[in-house]
Structures are given as C-alpha cells and as structure tokens.
C-alpha cells in the first residue's frame, strides 16, 4: 500500500485550487490510518476567512488527529488538504502525488498558528523569549524589534507584567496565553487550537477563553477543538461533531446546540449537560 498508489491524481479539482470560494483551509476526502486503524474517514470540510469553526466530539473521535493533519504533524494517507489554495504535504509529479520536501511543507503552513493542550512552551526561555524566538530565528528580526512586537503581543493577552518570567513560574492559564502569544507573534492567517483549556483547572479556563473570544471578535480565522460547549455555542460560527473518525453532523452553533439532528450528537450533548450542571448543594 504505497502512498503514491493511493493518491493518484484523479479527483476533480486537481487544477483549480480556489474552487469553493476564499477558503483558508479546504479538506477533501481525507483518510488517515494508524496501522490498520482508520482514525479519519472521508473528511470533507472547509474553513472560510474570519470563520470560527469548533470541532466537538468524544475522545478518540479523531479531532486532534484532524488538526495535526492540517499542520502536517501527521502525514495523511488519502485525500487532499489545501492551505490558502496550496496543496499541503504533497506535490503533483507526472499525474501522481509525491511527498513534498520539508521546506515546501514549512512554507505551505507558515501562515497557520497552533496552540496545544500541553502548551509546549520552551522552559529554558522567558515568556518574552518564547514569543520572540521565531521572530529572531525565522523572520530574522533584530532583537530590539522582536522584543517590541513580543511585548505588544504579550500585553494583548494580558501578560505585560510577566515578560521576564520563566514558564515554571507561571500558572497554567498564563502559560497557555504565552503559547497563544507565541503563535500570534508570527501573524498567522488562521489559528488552530487543540483542546487549549483541557489541561487547565476550571478557574484558569476563563482567562484563556477570554483571549480566544477577543481574537474571534477581531476577525481571526480559527479552528478550535474543544470540550467547552459554552464557548462553542457563544463564539463559533460553525460547529462540527465528530465520532469514530467521521463528521457525524455539522452546522451553525444554533443548529448543533439547539436542534441536534443525529441521535449520537444528542446523546453526547445530554451527557455533557448532565455532567456540567449537577453540582452538589
């Protein structure tokens, strides 16, 4: 089962990347296997500019894998992913698809920022250091200019007084905000969030969601995998519900949360409501 055999370029939009409007991310017939296990099955979706898309679903439904495929941290097995019209991870070579070079992959995803559940900050650098590392190392900015941008972005997420703090001295919510600032500093066109608040205790979740809400209001295109239904209901333009690697239902936030069509989604939301409103007296 070679990659090239499965990815013979027979699908329709091979020559026209911008069919479907100004989609920032377009995914066609995506499949991903871990060994024999099909973790993503025929995913088709788009994310338009300024759209906030929330992906909800039970653990193991493939939500994180989907996000990781979008940034090519996982190599997808079948289908295509387009970032701003450009095919990600592969290139056409004589009618077939061949794995692209690391350089091209980096270039393709350079306008995508990602925030992880575990923050993934670099512990030996300060908050400002984390945020400016790529500005200096990738954009080749002089240190002073990078520090200025870094301070501005950290101020924006509410951490103006923590520029010189090391991650070990910051709370989880603060660390995640540094992580958001680090991604924002590179001026991405779309931000992906992989369960950004799942590792935070309830009191700190709010400050991170606040930053994300602000970003959404400012028009950032966002894809958020989350269990925070309140956030999704309030901020999302569209919601996708996934289960067992497939998109089971999708629609506007209103559709999904008030008029759930499929029984699986109803079951999922009922469980969530039951768990989140039963506080002991």
């Amino acid at each position, binding site marked *: 089962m070679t990659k090239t055999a499965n990815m013979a370029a027979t699908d329709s939009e091979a020559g026209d990347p911008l069919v479907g409007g100004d989609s920032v991310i377009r995914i066609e017939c995506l499949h991903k296997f871990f060994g024999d296990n099909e973790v993503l099955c025929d995913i088709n979706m788009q994310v338009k500019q300024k759209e906030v898309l929330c992906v909800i679903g039970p653990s193991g439904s493939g939500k994180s894998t989907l996000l990781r495929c979008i940034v090519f941290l996982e190599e997808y097995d079948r289908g295509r992913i387009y970032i701003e019209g450009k095919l990600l991870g592969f290139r056409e070579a004589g009618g077939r698809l061949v794995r692209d070079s690391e350089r091209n992959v980096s270039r393709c995803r350079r306008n*995508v920022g*990602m925030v992880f559940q575990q923050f*993934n900050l670099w512990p*030996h650098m300060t908050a400002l250091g984390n945020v400016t590392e790529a500005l200096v190392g*990738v954009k080749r900015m002089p240190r002073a200019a990078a520090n200025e941008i870094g301070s501005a972005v950290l101020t924006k997420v509410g951490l103006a007084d923590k520029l010189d703090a090391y991650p070990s001295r910051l709370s989880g919510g603060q660390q995640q905000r540094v992580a958001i600032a680090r*991604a924002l500093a*590179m001026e991405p066109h779309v931000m992906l969030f992989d369960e950004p608040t799942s590792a935070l205790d309830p009191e700190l979740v709010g400050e991170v969601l606040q930053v994300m809400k602000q970003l959404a209001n400012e028009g950032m295109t966002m894809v958020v995998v989350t269990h925070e239904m309140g956030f999704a209901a309030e901020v999302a333009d569209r919601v996708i519900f996934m289960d067992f690697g497939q998109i089971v239902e999708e629609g506007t936030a209103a559709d999904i949360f008030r008029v759930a069509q499929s029984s699986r989604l109803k079951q999922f939301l009922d469980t969530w409501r039951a768990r989140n409103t039963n506080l002991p007296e």
Partner: protein
Amino acid sequence: MSFDFNLYVQYGPTLMAGLGFTVYVCALAALIGIVVGMVVAILQGLPVPPLRWVCRGYIEVIRGTPILVQLFIIYYGGPSFGLVLDAETVGIWGLGIYCGAYFAEVFRAGFESVPKGQTEAARLVGLSSARIIFRIKLPQMLILIIPPSINTLIMTIKESAILSIITVPEITKMTIQMVNETYAVFEPYIALAFLYWVIIEIVSRVGRAVEARISYL
C-alpha cells in the same frame, strides 16, 4: 619490605613526560570523540533511513569490540590495506573514534529527553532543524548529559592505558619501561595508579563545577 623513593627521583622526568603525553592524547581523543559523537547523534535523529543505519552500525561495531582489537587492526593490520600511520596518530584517532561511539549514545539520550511537543511547537512556528537543535534541545540537554559525559571521559582516560601496547609513549608505557629497567614493581605501579587517579579526580571535579554553574532552575 622497603619503599624506594629514590626511584621517583630517578624516573621523575620520564614519568612526567609520560603523564603529559597521556593528558595530550586523552584531550585530543576526547575532543574527537565529542565531535564525532555529537555529529552521529544528530544524524541519527534525522528521518533518513540510510543515515540512521550507518550511525547505528558505527555505534554497535565500535562499542561491541575491544579497543585493543581495533588498535591492532589499524596499527598492525593497516599496512596490508595501504594504511601506514605512526603509533601516536593511531592511538589518538583510535581512542577518539572509540569513545565517540559512547558519546553518541549519551547525546542521543539527551536529545530524546526533550519532550516531543516542544519540537512540534518549534517546527510549527517555523524554526529550522538546526535552530531546534541548538536553541531548544542542547540548552535543555546540557545539564542532563554532563554526568554521563564525565563518565565516558573517565572511561576514555583509563582506556588510554591500552595505547601503551602499541608503543604510544604515554604514562603506562613509561611506567612499564621503569619496571623493566629497575625490576621494581610496587613503586612504579603505585605511582601509576596515583597519577591516573589525580587526572580523573580533576576531571570529575570540573564536571561537578560545570553542573553547578549551568543549573538555571
């Protein structure tokens, strides 16, 4: 039983020359070993199967055979495939390549100790592989790899005694020469053990001092 200190007066210069040569050989071999080890550890981490295979082969063959055998092959066997080198060169490079295999494993463990998520975040924000190694991985690895590196260094210093067998004029060879000429056994070997201990103790202390200095947490 008497302890003849006069022997030390007589052979002092010889032993000191040997000591100097041991330090010289070990320093160069360690340098070679650290550079080779680091290069191999980095190459081994790249997603290029042929490279990983070669690096693994180097490590397993060199670690899997005694240094004495390796030195014999190069020094005595070399001429039969056109490689004629003097004892000093064979000694330094042989020891260097030998300890390089050990350093490679120490450094590989260091690289792998950095959580994968940090590397993923670095790649996504655009950092090059070189920057990831030098700015993200090495600074965090350093504190971790110092104790095993000092261990490997100490092992190298002790293995350097084997070089005496292929006539490299380091301290062990000078001591054996002293034994042959004076028929004394106790005084020379006690002095030899003591001199090795002094070198190693210095290295050990420097290692601990470096550890103390780079603790940043």
